[in-house]
């Protein structure tokens, strides 16, 4: 017993100050990408050709559009681009309410809007979630597990992962939704009492990610159930997931995170 107490004293207090303070991510962390189309050379398609998941396309609005839902946050595009037109910032905020709002065409940001008043009244201070992995590689699952550790301590926000969909207010879905998991996912969704929320986490859960094009999956959570919140990444950093959840619940009153471009356009 004395050893346990000695260890407890040595361990100290380890919970992150986020969201009240900057998450302090390292220099090489790859957060929200920005595109500067004015730097593109005429006719250059280097980034489009290099992207493993065809996340970058010639968009309708601007010369280039990067789909955060397909982006693996690898460095193929930034390495391929001779002009520095695509770069990753350290901005961890990525979550959006719709697929369209995941399209990056410049430096403008369309972050997730919070739930309506009635849903916020229901879930704002207590949100129970059931996680379903439907073909996830275990990286997104591991980051969701990490949210409950002493550093991120999800419980302090009233958010908790629960064992049964019947105890849950919503599902957190990872993986491209394999054919073999689609039925179980549908059953789990039906078991959650309405009103219910669905959150798709990771490139696979949003679009199929690195497995786009395989016939053994359905191409993400939205192919089976309606999705209310998309959190991109491969996998998304726990802070990115936490930011998405708190933003969604209207718990981030102001953008307190320092050191980033704060221009937020309502989505």
């Amino acid at each position, binding site marked *: 017993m004395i*050893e346990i107490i000695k260890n407890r004293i040595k361990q100290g207090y380890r919970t992150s100050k986020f969201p009240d303070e900057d998450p302090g991510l390292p220099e090489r962390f*790859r957060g929200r990408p920005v595109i500067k189309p004015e730097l593109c050379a005429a006719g250059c398609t280097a980034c489009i050709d290099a992207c493993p998941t065809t996340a970058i396309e010639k968009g309708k609005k601007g010369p280039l559009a990067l789909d955060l839902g397909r982006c693996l946050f690898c460095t193929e595009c930034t390495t391929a681009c001779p002009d520095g037109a695509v770069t990753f910032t350290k901005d961890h905020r990525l979550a959006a309410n719709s697929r369209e709002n995941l399209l990056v065409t410049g430096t403008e940001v369309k972050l997730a809007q919070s739930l309506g008043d009635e849903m916020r009244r229901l879930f704002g201070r207590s949100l129970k979630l059931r996680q379903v*992995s439907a073909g996830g590689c*275990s990286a997104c*699952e591991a980051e969701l597990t990490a949210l409950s550790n002493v550093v991120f301590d999800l419980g302090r926000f009233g958010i908790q992962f629960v*064992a049964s969909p019947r105890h849950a207010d919503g599902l957190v879905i990872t993986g491209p939704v394999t054919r*073999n998991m689609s039925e179980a996912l549908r059953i789990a969704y039906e078991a959650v009492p309405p009103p219910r929320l669905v959150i798709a986490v990771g490139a696979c859960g949003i679009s199929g990610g*690195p497995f786009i094009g395989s016939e053994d999956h359905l191409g993400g959570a939205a192919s089976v159930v309606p999705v209310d919140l998309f959190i991109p990444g491969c996998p998304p950093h726990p802070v990115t997931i936490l930011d998405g959840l708190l933003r969604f619940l209207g718990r981030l009153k102001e953008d307190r995170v320092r050191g980033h471009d704060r221009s937020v356009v309502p989505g």
Partner: protein
Amino acid sequence: MSPTSRFASIRNGEALDFSKIPVVPIEDFRSAILKLAAANHRLCALLCDGKDGRPPGSLLAVLADDIGGKLFLAASQPVTSYPSLTPDLAQAHLFEREIYEGSGIRPDGHPWLKPVRRALADKVAFFSEQGDEVHEVAVGPIHAGIIEPGHFRFQCHGEMVHHLEIQLGYQHRGAERLLREGPPHRSLAVAESICGDTAVAHAWAHCAMREALAGVSPTLRAEALRAIVLEVERLANHIGDLGAISNDIGFLPATAYFGRMRGDFLNMLMTISGNRYGKGMLRPGGVAFDLTAGMRTEILETINRSIRHLREVGGMFFGEPSVISRLEDTGTVSRKICDDLGLVGVCARATGADRDVRQDHPYGLYRFRHIPVVRLDSGDVFARAMVRFLEAQRSLEFLGDAVDHLPEGSATSPCAAPAANRLAVALVEGWRGEVCHIAKTGRDGSYDWYKVIDPSFHNWMALALALRGGEISDFPLCNKSFNLSYAGHDL
């Protein structure tokens, strides 16, 4: 005639002309494998060629000589069916089920020819036991925690488990097909997502195989950086597993401290590569990120701090008599089962097997810097936990040394396109055990086939056997002590 005369031999990370692999009649193929297996060679891989899954097809076997550090390859003439190897060599059981499912080539006399990844769609029945007071418990595919899907079917008498059938396949995403037929510039991303907690080991096996097919070698500095991130990956997972085991026995202080320490190593991977799982770190020809002087100092500080913390928290955990009594004699796997099934990694070393790719088939930096192999022989949850604890300490020592003595030079070099009609095998000791990538190129250098074998593929059956005669309430603890990958198995 020596038992190896029917085989071509290569070393880990080498390629050879496909025409150099002897093609023998199926009877000779079968008897040669059995002879070699009897001489303590281990079945690394058994697969069949062909893209569209229609027999006939030719079989290919890779056997490992873990003492001599060699890999032996042989191929059979095309067959539509053959006498199953499994009754004589249990190591082949899952490979043969996979071959039958994928190609329709029938291993006659296989005791349990159930599909591996298609059993759900085909609605194949579970093994079931009849009798008074015998009951069945079904769990999954969705489990109570944040965990990948799989189905577990127990045949029980009271609390005692008579039989456990593990039905996987829910995670099948078609990874091998994408590696073979998908866009070549996607391969690395697919390899990194075969099993997300083993991203570095799978990426390394993929890159080593690509480099072997192209006939290039990465620089010494790149090899050192790869070994550094592989050991950081091992540390994150071993320490995380110790936390998960302590959680399952309700010893929560250790859960919290190990869980926090795991984060230190994920963050170390993020400092180096920008991703907490090291995705994007490796690339054919080398690595994408080098260490700066500042990073080296920061990493060495974390290592020194972690050596102390791991000793303190590990001392608290393993020093608690109630912890030891819960872990000992739970979920025991004997050395015989280990050898029969060809177990790999932590599970094998916890039964006393001296088996570690870093020692037996050294690659990259491990050719020059050796890492002691940790073995225990009780085969229970305690042994699997203790092997992790001791290996984590060895990895910390190795890491400190490797970061301190980083070779000079470039961290990357160009990697040419794969040569035509070659076959390469790459083994990497991931934190769970042997990660194996094998591929063969066709006339234009593109892949004819690409085979991935995650360590979990060898080890899942051992979990089923570990439960026999135990209590069903021990299952979560046993499962954690193996911590096998569902996605790595299902591909």
